[in-house]
């Protein structure tokens, strides 16, 4: 249980940032005449004004939630890649509640929608947890496979039974009623949705629980030595299912928020790889719940700046994915290098 030294704690992010900027500039230089200007436009597009910041926050929220849903199981040694599927399945069950209560008032609709989404996400997380606990089935593989199932299920309902007939060929449900929209408020021109604050609160709560409570120690014990954990009476199966269900709830919450607040309906592409981004953020943050917050904001900004890159430098949308890759590569390379030089 050695904590990284103070020096290491600050030098790694700083050096990784410098490396990332350098590599990103090199990437722009290959594709555009004025790399510094492109980089400037990118930063401007992510955090330059209230509107840009609002968009970045909207993109950062599901990444943050998905990262939490990856980091929590990792505390007990479970490696889940299932945030994407849990996000979709949560959106699916939440939407089911909305479609059933289309004309209900907000105080009925919102809790029903949230409850259904959380339950759906929890189910999609608990299944791999249960398979791991009872049958020792690899949770990583099950979560990957369940991702496909959930994404295709959403496809099925929006192309099929839940499709809004008025949409003609376009696959989507009817628009959600205003009662299904989560509150948002505006500070200095920046719109902050309530779900972002909920996600931050969840990160803080998980951090407190995992680092200070006996439950957090139980998870560490399970990761270290299951037999030693059983000496303490800590049950592997129960914790595996619980942790995976909580993880699913977090991602499921992100899913229904995408449908209700961002798209206003359920449609096939409610996530642009948020599950995977969340996975990377969680591992970059070293499964530290607090470190996940700034990293998610960075990732959200990067995703949000895609439009700016397209407009300013005629770079395709996919270039943000390249930049994501460069960012993660930089951090991982520096981490690895530091670990090696330390050893």
């Amino acid at each position, binding site marked *: *249980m050695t904590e990284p030294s103070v020096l290491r704690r600050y030098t790694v992010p700083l050096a990784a940032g410098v490396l990332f900027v350098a590599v990103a500039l090199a990437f722009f230089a290959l594709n555009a005449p004025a790399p510094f200007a492109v980089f400037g436009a990118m930063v401007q597009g992510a955090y330059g004004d209230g509107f840009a910041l609002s968009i970045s926050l909207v993109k950062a929220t599901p990444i943050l939630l998905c990262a939490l849903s990856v980091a929590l199981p990792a505390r007990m040694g479970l490696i889940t890649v299932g945030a994407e599927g849990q996000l979709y399945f949560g959106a699916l069950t939440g939407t089911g509640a909305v479609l059933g209560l289309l004309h209900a008032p907000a105080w009925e609709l919102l809790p029903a929608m949230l409850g259904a989404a959380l339950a759906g996400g929890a189910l999609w997380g608990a299944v791999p947890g249960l398979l791991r606990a009872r049958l020792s089935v690899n949770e990583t593989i099950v979560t990957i496979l369940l991702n496909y199932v959930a994404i295709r299920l959403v496809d099925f309902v929006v192309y099929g039974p839940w499709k809004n007939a008025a949409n003609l060929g376009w696959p989507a449900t009817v628009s959600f009623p205003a009662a299904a929209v989560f509150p948002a408020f505006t500070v200095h021109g920046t719109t902050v949705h309530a779900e972002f604050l909920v996600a931050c609160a969840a990160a803080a709560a998980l951090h407190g629980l995992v680092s*200070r*409570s*006996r*439950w957090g*120690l139980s998870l*560490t*014990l399970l990761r*270290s*030595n299951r*037999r*030693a*954990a*059983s*000496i*303490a*009476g*800590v049950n592997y199966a129960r914790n595996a299912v619980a942790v995976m269900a909580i993880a699913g709830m977090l991602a499921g919450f992100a899913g229904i928020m995408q449908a209700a607040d961002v798209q206003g309906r359920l449609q096939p592409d409610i996530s642009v790889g948020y599950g995977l981004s969340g996975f990377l953020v969680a591992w970059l943050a070293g499964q530290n719940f607090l470190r996940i917050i700034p990293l998610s904001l960075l990732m959200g900004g990067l995703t949000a700046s895609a439009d700016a890159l397209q407009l300013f430098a005629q770079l395709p949308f996919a270039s943000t994915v390249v930049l994501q890759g460069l960012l993660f590569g930089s951090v991982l390379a520096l981490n690895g290098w530091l670990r090696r030089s330390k050893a």
Partner: protein
Amino acid sequence: MLVALKGIHKRFGSVHANRDVHLQIGAGEVLALLGENGAGKSTLMKILYGFYAPDAGEILIDGVPVRMDSPRTAMSRGIGMVFQHFSLVRELSVRENLLLAYPHSPWWQGRAHARANRVLRRLREFAPDIDPDALVSQLSVGEQQQVELVKVLNVDARLVILDEPTSVLTPPEAERLWALVRKLAEAGHSVVFITHKLEDVMACADRVAIMRAGALVDVRDANRLNEQQLVELMMGAGAHSAAIEVDAPASAVARLLVAAVSATRDVMHIEDINLELAAGEILGIAGVAGNGQALLADAVAGFAPLTAGEVILAGNVLHSAERSIAHDPRIGYIPENPLRNAVAADLSNYINLLLRRYSEVAFFPRWEREKTAARALIKRFDVRPPLAELSSGALSGGNLQKLVIARELSRPRELVVACYPTMGLDVHAAAAVYQHLFAQARAGACVLWISEDLDDLMRYAHRIAVLYHGRIVVTVDHRDADRHVLGRWMTGAAAAAA
């Protein structure tokens, strides 16, 4: 080859593991490195093997200073080491394990390959009884150790370091090892034999180097010293262990009932085990390693599911084929291989010490209070180094054993199951363990004590049962116990004759 260590210093945190050690190892000699647990023997040899870097001092080979920056360097200089924890792949055969470790291993590992057979030459020479095509998982601990040794010899080690080799061996296996060590020395190899057992020194050493608290106390010819002198050098003058007391059990009424218990794990079985223990009774289980001891201990303590039978304590069913409770608070359990079975190695000592009263710890624990409690236990059970925040995996085998005993026996228990509780401990520390163990019996606990040390069993246990091929083949009162008769039961000879 002449190896010289000069002025070696090594510190771990505030603890001096080695201070100013000067030691020479000559060609073809067997040097016993003798000392208590935590005296710094293993550290010193791990420095020679390039595993640790010394804080000060140098290593000379044939008079030339050498920087041992990794075990690879040490091996290229002809120094090899056999550790207490083997690094064999259990699922592979002996031949495959030897090929894996052999630097000139052919790329295509066909069975008939000439070079593939070369790795077996030393196996045939030093351990002719081992079948090269047997899986390592089928070998006894002693045989696995011999394979490890052959692995080291195959990389042309001229100096072989053996880290507490006899601590995992049965008496006949140890005798075989002593002979093997003498054979190596005659073949011109130097051997460093790390040990805390005087019998090892007497049996096969040319010279003995004695370490105490990180410093080298003395180096002498082995035949110049008697056991008493060795103990005094090792422990310091005037160190005597308190007498170990064992009372007769107060009543003859059975308190622990192991009734027709069977269990299966991997290839191991125990079948139809029936035992009765009165309160305060110590029942010793003798047997050669690998006859189901660990499984029996796990089954009685609730760590292995039963396929049949019941374990009943004071009239309550503890475990049965239907249900079993791992760690009832009335049970104290010291399992075999505590590193794997009793502690979370990468967590701190104070965490591992609180596992048995986990549910009493507050949901938001007050860590300072827990550390204070842990420090008291560490002091009382003499765990060294006495650091509450050290990872338990960093403790030496003996001290880890003490840590587990501190956790399991610091409270009164109704049943104590101890599987090889003194493995890896020196005389002094073993005596302390026996005191804690038998104090539980005096307070009325049933003690099920599994050991390979027949002498200790006959000295302290009230009755001795012999486990052979997963069955209890005989149970005798300690007054009627006879070493040779028990030995015949342990090897199955008596059953064959009957």
